[in-house]
């Protein structure tokens, strides 16, 4: 009697080589465990409340907000690639488009999941839509992120429906074709929504008059951080896409996109990062010389608290800003994969550092003259919940890579992002 071998071959695109199902399941196992721990930690927070975290009345925001802002910035590659391909007609980036959508979907859905744990009354989330305060940056963030997640879901569906078996379902096939025709429109809507919510996330802290370390003046109702967040997100998004694609290439041992795509992404990321660094430098100078003193605070006093000294400012602007921007723009770097990816990783780290400074450092610093500098260490529930989001991302991406035409497929010439 012949032995039965469990296989998922018929779900994988024709002509595509994928590892065996058993090896794939083995790869998923640790991530599933991490996800399960994360779900358990999140359930504790939802059931027993936020006393499961180490946040407190002074440190009212913690690890989760920092990571939300971070992964939403890194997920900006999704809307920005769509913008470049569909609006600016940069067709050479089409090979990266599907993976950009999946990465964006993971980042945004993960961030929304964490946000739902992070609020004290998640069942009241709809109140923001019912009683919106139009002056609040958080209202704008809530509206735009919700809408954009819907857009990303609609962009993800055509990719999902191109699975070898799902394509056999006539209604799904028709639905996919209809959705596919809408993709350029969705990309345009996504671009609009993303510009606003990336900016509003920057505005979240920039409008805080009561937190002079974060408070910024700006243009009309928008503080400068509004524009800096947009710039930094569209600068880091392409770098993060490069990192994700290169990691997948390393893990699978396959060449997935032409080197030209990496070169193009590196140039775009480098150029935008250079503009961001220039804008950030000007903003810092204005804050040091005008904004902070006018609120009665000597700006350098904010850097007197270890470990948040001036090196962190240097790191943000020069080490993880100017340096990776120069590397990404340097023509020879583009031909050296290792250097290119190091520069991309530094660019992403710089943006994460910026989000950390704005969220965590702002709350750690004293405002009242007799306040103390505060420290905060997240609880295991906070760390595990976020670990769960990372595991969720790896699992969704792994499944998408295995069963969907993320980088086109040999057996399927009509690339989703193409035509």
């Amino acid at each position, binding site marked *: 009697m012949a032995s039965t071998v469990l296989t998922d071959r018929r779900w994988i695109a024709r002509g595509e080589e994928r590892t065996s199902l058993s090896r794939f399941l083995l790869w998923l196992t640790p991530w599933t465990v991490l996800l399960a721990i994360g779900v358990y930690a999140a359930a504790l927070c939802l059931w027993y409340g936020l006393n499961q975290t180490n946040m407190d009345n002074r440190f009212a925001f913690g690890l989760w907000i920092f990571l939300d802002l971070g992964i939403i910035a890194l997920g900006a590659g999704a809307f920005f690639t769509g913008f470049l391909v569909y609006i600016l007609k940069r067709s050479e980036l089409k090979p990266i488009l599907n993976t950009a959508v999946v990465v964006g979907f993971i980042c945004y859905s993960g961030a929304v999941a964490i946000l739902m744990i992070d609020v004290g009354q998640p069942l009241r989330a709809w109140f923001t839509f019912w009683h919106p305060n139009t002056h609040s940056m*958080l209202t704008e963030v809530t509206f735009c992120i919700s809408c954009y997640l819907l857009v990303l879901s609609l962009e993800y569906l055509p990719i999902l429906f191109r699975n070898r078996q799902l394509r056999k379902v006539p209604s799904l096939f028709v639905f996919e074709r209809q959705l596919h025709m809408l993709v350029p429109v969705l990309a345009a809507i996504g671009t609009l929504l993303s510009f606003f919510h990336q900016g509003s996330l920057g505005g979240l802290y920039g409008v805080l008059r009561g937190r002079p370390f974060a408070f910024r003046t700006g243009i009309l109702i928008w503080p400068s951080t509004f524009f800096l967040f947009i710039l930094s997100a569209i600068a880091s998004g392409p770098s993060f896409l490069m990192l994700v694609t290169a990691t997948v290439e390393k893990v699978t041992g396959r060449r997935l996109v032409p080197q030209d795509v990496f070169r193009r992404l590196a140039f775009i990321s480098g150029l935008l990062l250079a503009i961001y660094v220039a804008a950030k430098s000007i903003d810092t100078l204005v804050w040091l010389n005008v904004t902070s003193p006018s609120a009665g605070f000597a700006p350098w006093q904010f850097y007197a608290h270890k470990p948040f000294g001036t090196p962190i400012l240097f790191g943000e602007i020069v080490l993880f800003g100017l340096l990776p921007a120069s590397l990404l723009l340097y023509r020879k770097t583009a031909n050296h994969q290792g250097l290119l990816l190091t520069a991309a990783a530094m660019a992403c780290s710089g943006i994460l550092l910026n989000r950390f400074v704005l969220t965590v450092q702002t709350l750690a610093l004293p405002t009242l003259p007799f306040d103390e500098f505060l420290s905060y260490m997240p609880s295991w529930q906070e760390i595990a919940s976020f670990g769960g989001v990372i595991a969720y991302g790896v699992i969704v991406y792994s499944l998408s890579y295995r069963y969907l035409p993320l980088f086109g497929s040999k057996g399927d010439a009509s690339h989703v992002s193409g035509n």
Partner: protein
Amino acid sequence: MSAARYGMVIDLDRCTGCGSCMVACASENNIPALPQATARTGLTPMLVRRVSNSKQGSERREAFFPIMCMHCEHETPCVKVCPQQAVEVDKATGVVMQMPQRCLGCRYCMTACPYHARYFNWWDPSWPAGMEKSLNPGVSSRMRGVVEKCNLCHARLHSAMEKAAAGKREIDAADYIPACVEACPTGAIQFGNLADANDPVTKESKSPESFRLLARLGTEPKVYYKSKEAWVRALAEPNAAPASEVQHG
């Protein structure tokens, strides 16, 4: 009724740090007794903070700062940021109101408040057995997961308004006195209508010895402090003098 601007002047030279105001506030507003709460997670809408001039020996001076919601009236930081209008400035009274029933618990208002005068309900409210009989029936307790703060004893304001409405007259100042003001044994906390030029509190607020914390932020707080001590007055400016907190009251 003409619009009021309720505010306070707290004479720091009179404050002994006894904490009566904190106890009265907790009792009036049904603040739960939570043994698991810490100095950083407890509910203290009125918090007396003990500060020193950071000197030692005979030069050492200390003062007590009762800290509560300052009821800012310009660009009120918490009102501006709340995504679902759970915080508002009552135009009739100038009181910054928190609506726990609408609060999402996002805590954005807490990060916005420069005075750290907003508190999150990290736990379900609970009281030792029997203590619930002493709760104030005029104030609803707040559930876990929402933010709360000083609302200048709004239940007392309601009561005074009802009394005024029944008598078809304006609110009598004697009918509306927040619990902390009433409880202070040294009379350090004065409460009144800053919109009334003849109110003693308005006159006190204009004294050269009066100041407001972080006034340069431009949020126009309605809680004034008063002291004859220059080093205490210097605390109005964040950089003006070295000061340190000795401990929470």
